[in-house]
């Protein structure tokens, strides 16, 4: 087998050193009954050409990946990934190393993570960010758990109904063992599509642990985060902002500036292909005051014996391998290489480019909305949106089918997630979409083609 270096004489010599007759001697102590039934019934090994043929044909059957004009979003976004990102994340030194336990042999990883942490604080307007979480949904759940550690006496978690269903479900699962906590859903205003601040205000009392609001939310709407955070903090609770389209943070006021205590989200938009949903990268930022309650790894600045600047993992006393059952989280392996991809992506975009790209997304999305409106496909909500918006598509299923026949993935029907949104379609637009696609989309949805 091409990955195994062991020649007959190697095996023989190694067995002799050990003092064993054959390889099976080495596992003779494993109960015979187990060994007897351990055979793996899978096809024999294949060479590269055979694997390419087999997986290549599977890939080719995913026609949705390339053969359609796509308006799919809803937490995963289709942005151009610069070649530099692939070139850097493919570097064996980055890809085949592990958690940087030995800083002297990991300065590439630790310095890059330090840069990631810094850029996340710059984007979120908060003071400290960790080295990455699995994804936006689990990062949101960890944020609620973190809030719980900060304010252990409070019991009520206010989740905006306008959050992504995956995120709400993940929070529910992570909290399922903490039975004393109560999940309350904060409705959204049916006209604006934004979270109903009055409803939030009604539960903003000393029982409130935290509020969790999308920014933008699952409908692409720029939530009134400032007001929501103010209400939350006035009640002495913790304001958590959740962002699934982090490109928005290049243009919108930062969660920190608007008063959020914790900002979490999904970084897939930053240099990661959709990959059918994973791996993306979760991010989390918070105030320095809450540092000790933060989950996940942190890289800090230090120096070597000769005073030369260096970086290393730090504050590990929060973590499972030291604190064990009292750790702030059970996370160990995180999404480091994805965080590196995001770091390269953000470095490429830069201070000016990121804002320009965010602006282009807003402009294109609004041009798309206008194109649809002029074809009679009108927006469902009134509040300002970033690069996704909800339209009334009449019979959504039929509209999607029409569009598919026109090789368009028109978006997502929302009624299965929000029964009250019958006929509603979420349309997501990025810099990858064009006016001609908008026209085709309008034609397909309006049924005029």
């Amino acid at each position, binding site marked *: 087998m091409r990955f195994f270096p062991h020649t007959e004489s190697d095996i023989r010599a190694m067995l002799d050193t050990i003092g064993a007759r054959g390889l099976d001697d080495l596992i003779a102590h494993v109960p015979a009954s187990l060994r007897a039934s351990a055979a793996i019934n899978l096809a024999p090994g294949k060479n590269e050409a055979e694997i390419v043929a087999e997986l290549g044909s599977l890939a*080719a059957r995913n026609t949705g990946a390339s053969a359609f004009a796509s308006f799919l979003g809803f937490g995963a976004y289709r942005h151009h990934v610069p070649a530099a990102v692939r070139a850097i994340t493919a570097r064996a030194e980055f890809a*085949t190393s592990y*958690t940087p336990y*030995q800083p002297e042999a990991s300065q590439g990883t630790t310095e890059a993570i330090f840069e990631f942490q810094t850029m996340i604080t710059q984007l979120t307007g908060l003071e400290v960010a960790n080295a990455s979480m699995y994804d936006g949904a689990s990062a949101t759940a960890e944020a609620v758990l973190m809030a719980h550690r900060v304010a252990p006496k409070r019991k009520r978690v206010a989740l905006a109904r306008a959050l992504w269903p995956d995120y709400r479900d993940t929070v*529910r699962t992570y909290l399922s063992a903490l039975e004393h906590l109560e999940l309350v859903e904060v409705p959204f205003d049916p006209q604006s599509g934004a979270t109903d601040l009055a409803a939030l205000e009604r539960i903003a009392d000393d029982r409130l642990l935290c509020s969790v609001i999308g920014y933008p939310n699952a409908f692409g709407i720029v939530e009134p985060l400032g007001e929501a955070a103010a209400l939350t903090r006035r009640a002495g609770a913790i304001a958590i902002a959740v962002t699934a389209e982090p490109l928005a943070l290049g243009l919108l006021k930062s969660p920190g500036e608007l008063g959020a205590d914790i900002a979490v989200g999904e970084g897939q938009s930053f240099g990661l292909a959709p990959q*059918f949903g*994973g791996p993306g990268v979760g991010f989390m930022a918070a105030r320095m005051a809450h540092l000790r309650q933060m989950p996940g790894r942190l890289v800090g600045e230090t120096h070597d014996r000769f005073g030369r600047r260096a970086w290393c993992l730090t504050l590990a006393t929060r973590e499972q391998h030291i604190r064990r059952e009292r750790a702030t989280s059970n996370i160990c392996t995180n999404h480091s290489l994805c965080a590196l991809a995001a770091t390269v992506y953000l470095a490429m975009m830069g*201070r000016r480019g990121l804002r320009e790209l965010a602006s282009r997304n807003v402009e294109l999305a609004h041009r798309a909305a206008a194109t649809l409106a002029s074809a009679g496909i009108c927006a469902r909500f009134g509040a300002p949106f970033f690069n996704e918006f909800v339209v009334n598509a009449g019979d959504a299923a039929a509209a999607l089918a029409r569009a598919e026949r026109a090789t368009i993935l028109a978006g997502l029907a929302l009624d299965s997630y929000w029964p009250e949104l019958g006929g509603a379609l979420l349309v997501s637009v990025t810099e990858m979409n064009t006016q001609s696609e908008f026209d085709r989309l309008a034609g397909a949805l309006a049924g005029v083609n």
Partner: protein
Amino acid sequence: MVGERKMATAGKIAREVEQMQTPPVAPEAPAAADVRSVPLLFEESAAGRSGADIIARTAGDRDAAAILGAALCRDDIPGFPELSEPQVMRHFLRLSQLNFGQALQFYPLGSCTMKYNPVLNDEMASLTGFSALHPMTPAHLAAGALELMAWLEGALAEITGMDAVSLHPAAGAQGELAGLLMMRAYHRKRGAARHKVIIPDTAHGTNPASCTLAGFEVVVARSNRRGFLEAAEIRRLASDDVAALMVTNPNTLGIFEPEIAAIADVLHERGALLYLDGANMNALLGVAKPGHMGADIVQLNLHKTFSTPHGGGGPGAGPVAVKKHLAPFLPLPRLRQDGEAWSFDYDRPDSIGRLRGFHGNFGMLVRACSFILALGGNGLTEASRFAILAANYVRTRLEPHFPSATAEPSMHECVLTHDLEKRADVNTLDIAKRLLDFGIHPPTIYFPLVVHGALMIEPTETETRETLDTFVNAMERIYAEALSNPELVRTAPHTLWLSRVDEAHAARRPVLRWQPDKE
């Protein structure tokens, strides 16, 4: 004759190590450091530089700030990087060279299975049909991806001897959480909530941490002097409030739990479950199936046993496999087949729900498929045997200076100790740092906690005997140095561009981000 040549080479390498110049005890900071260190992105920035050329605004479009209203928009991202594309490339290329990696160095990090990661796997994951596939794509337009997932679930079930598999969890620890929550749901469903989980003192830190997260109280079981769990100990602890035993097999001492079957019986008699942490599955391929040991739940780390790259700390994937009676509780979504066509099934009332967005770390699943296809049933079986061979070879050769922490035979890794702390005031960390001078990444150290100054060595099946010999020679050399010149070892590394890093300092006064005013 070629055989001889290889021997010669092995000998040669050994000799090279012998002949290595002893670096000075406290060398001058070499100029190399100034040359090799890389300033931060922020320090390399200049106003107006950018590595991006954004498509110009189409005539007639209103500016985004005008569309949204200036009140919603920020003016700037102070301090954000401003570099040209060539600067960005050079920055990260230079950074990469400051890393050790399995592909370039021997990396026997115990419990992490740093085996060779085939480059083909990454190419397969980057096929447009996989990488550009949006998670919300209608099932009939993502048929290949769904079939791949179904195939992998089947393959992992076959490999582990379990009945059902979920590819949902993002990593091993999340697989643990999924398993523990399923356990919780299972007991409730049967009308009897249980609040305790037994964990051996050798357990990996994620095990107790996951228990807490799942609302269980941890009861610690002591492994015996020989380093394994006795059924008697479990019998002693397995009260009616015990939901399960969570055990790693082979355990973190690298030895197979001999009483595992009896232990499973004890648990099952008591209505408790056996959770098997499958992070060490690299020892069991074609050797023993967790399902046959009586395990009810086992999570796998695809980034260990199944070669997906560790990426400097992830992403990985932590599929969870269960027996029939736990299948209803598996996380959402599940795969469902109607005729030929696969789709996602969300209608599973007993499911614990989801622990992350979408359908799992699909990109990693593609890589694991590519790996399993490459090895096949026969190759997987060989893999564990070669991994076990390597671990025992290293253990035997090092025995004289670094005795094993246990007398039991080792599986895929060995845990060694030493007397250098007493004899020369040289500790395990010093040994680890000195290994860097030999171009070798250190083993896992100070784990498992039950072994004082542990060196946990996992060579894996993809390293040559010559490489193992080089490692053994380096370890022996270091042992000798520790006695003849302890300061040399205590102050290692000496031949890297950077010397030993002051980790305590980082924690004392945390600097966790770059800030303009710092400049």
